[in-house]
């Protein structure tokens, strides 16, 4: 168990290092930030001086070593564009993305799991078929189109929900949350649905497939053969066995949700990390892009690690070793 955790940890470090390298190679290959940092009338010699000041003329290796060292010390540097410390920038944007991602994931689970169970148990039903087709169409429309459609339907035409931003926020320490005001929740609904729809379909289909698989296993057949009540067969026997593989995927999905929030955040002007990232792309703010990449990868790695450990916690076959 400990050995397993250590092994995963070492692998995670490898992943982080590789990502750090990629993040750094952004510096080497994506655009020239100087043009973005300076105004129209800045002379060329001033631009060169700035380039020198920022260390952009140093050799690749020197820059990479400096970069990795800074990252390890938790010094994420300063934005080319706003000169803000990037650590603080990311930290101030993090809650928005995490809240959006979590709520989107929750929506996808709260709707997706029951829908998956239902469609697995009644695979031929009209409701099941329409659910399957409906969600299929849902994921076949590009996310940004869905987002804009929702905005114009519920924001502009019906006027029920806000169309951009986070609405009312409450600060708890540095964490700016929109979960404590009615307005915040109203602002959260549309982006969360937009972001969650794809995950919802995934969850539903996965749960459905797993559930159908589990319902065919011997232990379920045995439970039926000994007259265990159907309710218990479905929810006490089949469902937990279904959820074990589902948990892994959901863990992976959370990483995906955070990464894919870029589009949703852009459509809803949701002030999270994705929007920050898009802005930094627009202005070639390479340090911010790099740190974003590292942070996303870090989340991904941590979630993967957590899922692996959660797995052990849930499955007695992995948890309880001694046998008689």
């Amino acid at each position, binding site marked *: 168990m400990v050995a397993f955790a250590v092994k995963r940890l070492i692998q995670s470090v490898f992943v982080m290092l590789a990502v750090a390298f990629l993040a750094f190679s952004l510096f080497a290959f994506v*655009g020239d930030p100087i043009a973005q940092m300076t105004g129209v009338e800045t002379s*060329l010699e001033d631009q060169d001086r700035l380039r020198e000041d920022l260390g952009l003329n140093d050799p690749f290796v020197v820059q990479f070593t400096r970069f990795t060292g800074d990252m390890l010390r938790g010094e994420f540097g300063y934005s080319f564009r*706003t*000169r803000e410390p990037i650590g603080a920038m990311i930290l101030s944007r993090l809650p928005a993305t995490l809240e959006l991602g979590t709520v989107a994931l929750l929506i996808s689970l709260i709707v997706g799991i029951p829908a998956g169970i239902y469609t697995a148990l009644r695979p031929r039903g009209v409701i099941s078929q329409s659910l399957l087709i409906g969600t299929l169409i849902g994921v076949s429309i590009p996310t940004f189109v869905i987002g804009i459609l929702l905005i114009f339907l519920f924001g502009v035409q019906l006027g029920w929900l806000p169309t951009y931003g986070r609405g009312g926020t*409450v*600060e708890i320490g540095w964490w700016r949350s929109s979960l404590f005001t009615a307005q915040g929740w109203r602002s959260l609904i549309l982006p969360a649905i937009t972001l969650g729809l794809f995950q919802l379909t995934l969850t539903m289909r996965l749960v459905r497939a797993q559930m159908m698989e589990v319902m065919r296993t011997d232990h379920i057949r045995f439970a039926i053969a000994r007259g265990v009540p159907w309710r218990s067969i479905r929810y006490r026997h089949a469902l937990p066995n279904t959820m074990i593989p589902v948990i892994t995927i959901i863990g992976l999905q959370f990483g995906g949700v955070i990464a894919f929030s870029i589009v949703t955040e852009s459509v809803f002007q949701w002030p999270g990390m994705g929007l*920050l990232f898009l802005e930094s792309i627009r202005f070639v703010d390479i340090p911010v892009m790099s740190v974003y990449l590292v942070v996303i990868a870090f989340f991904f790695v941590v979630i993967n690690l957590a899922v692996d450990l959660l797995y052990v916690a849930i499955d007695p076959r992995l948890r309880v070793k001694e046998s008689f």
Partner: protein
Amino acid sequence: MFRTTFPVAALALSTTLLSSLPVAAETFRWAGTTDPQTMDPHAVNAAPVLSFLNNVYEGLVRRDPEMGVEPSLATSWEALPDGAGWRFTLREGVTFHDGSEFNADDVIFSYERAVSEASDVRSWFASVTEVVRVDDFTVDFVTTAPNPLFPGSIANFMILDSGWAAENGADLPARDAENHATRNANGTGPFMLAARNPGIETRLVPNENWWDTAGHNVTEAIFTPIGNPATGLAALLSGEIDFISPIPLQDAEQVEERDGFEVLAGLETRVIMLGFGHDHDSLLYSEETTGANPFHDPRVRRAVAQAIDVETIDRVIMRGAAEPASQLVPAGLSGYSDDHADRPDYDPDAARALLDEAGYGDGFSFGLMCPNDRYINDEAVCRAVASMLARIGVEANVNAMPVRGYWDELRADNFDMYLLGWSPGTFDAEHPIRFLAHTPTERLGTWNFGGYSNQRIDALLAPIQSEVDPAARQAMLDEVAGILQEDVAYVPLYTQPLIWAMQENVDVVQRPDDFFMLRWVTVN
């Protein structure tokens, strides 16, 4: 530590209710595409920053709704004898937002800060050798040569409180890391910075102690950047914001037709033009013309100008909101040459004839570089140009790219022809001559990517800059405009429109430089 903020919804729900009532003052919400990246007036010379900070900081002079120069922190100014510079008499009794007094020390401090190495606005003072404190409320700007337009050129030079800056370690603009002035402000302007949340929202409250009479009735102003045009428009239509700039041209009509909304369409000072690779020996993106550059021939350049149907571009792509342009500056701007107000006629036949004459009757292909997120419908315009040129047998391969890499490509000479928009920072015709028409050198012609070179224009620049007599100066400007038109150095297409949209109950003033001034906002 709970701090609650209740913005949008209460407002959204109540706008209809409130708009019918006589309301004295109001929270005003507005949105633009880009967040001002810093609150430091000397750190970045970019329109979003300067536009925003003009509400918080002030310069010695300021511009009125028609772009005229009027007194601000200076009550008056006069040229020093022999064109040695300018003397500014400062306004007395002005206080910064933190209560400290404004005087000549702040001007000198701000000048030194603005010309420091870390500053991005040094170029404004290229001709200034020194600023001299005459007394508490008089300063002299000493210049190398007579500079008649100097006061207007420093309208965006904003004055910081020296004491405040020193206290907070903001003596110099932030270069690598941020400093106190990046997120905080202490100006003399009509609005004070109440809260700054970069990239998310920025709040301003009126400065009760402002020296001037407040023309607005705003009690609180909140700015939110909304990058996606559709999202921004939706926010306006759903009543969540009161004002947005810009909105897509194609949506203007729909917004106008809706009840409760108003669109303000005007012209920016930005002229959109095509530039040529004058100093390229050959075309880079052509198969047919190896070793030759047809654009060396003025007839070919003229053919291009005559092949482009600017009227139709205006009608279809710009929805009739643009204004065809004949020069590098829009009509009516200071220094605009009335003698050269006509642009070449749209005449594809004549264009084809010119090509024939130049020996390119069979046409040729070339690369047209184009940004796709810089100007209004920039890419569509390039494609329309390409399509029109195709009709005279010239094939333009359009390479449209985000502005983030665009200038690099132009500086690296990766073009045969390119699209450029130019808005003169000084609101004078001299500005584009300095940057676009002068032969490129270290300091001049820095945006003359194509390397257009004309000795007469080079020779005229200095006199234009120092000539004090308006008529003599205009004569020289007319000559330059004539040369540029004759040479077809650039093909000016049109003056870019400026589309603002707002709730019907909002009154604003649209200034041609696209600066949004809160002090002219009234919410009814």
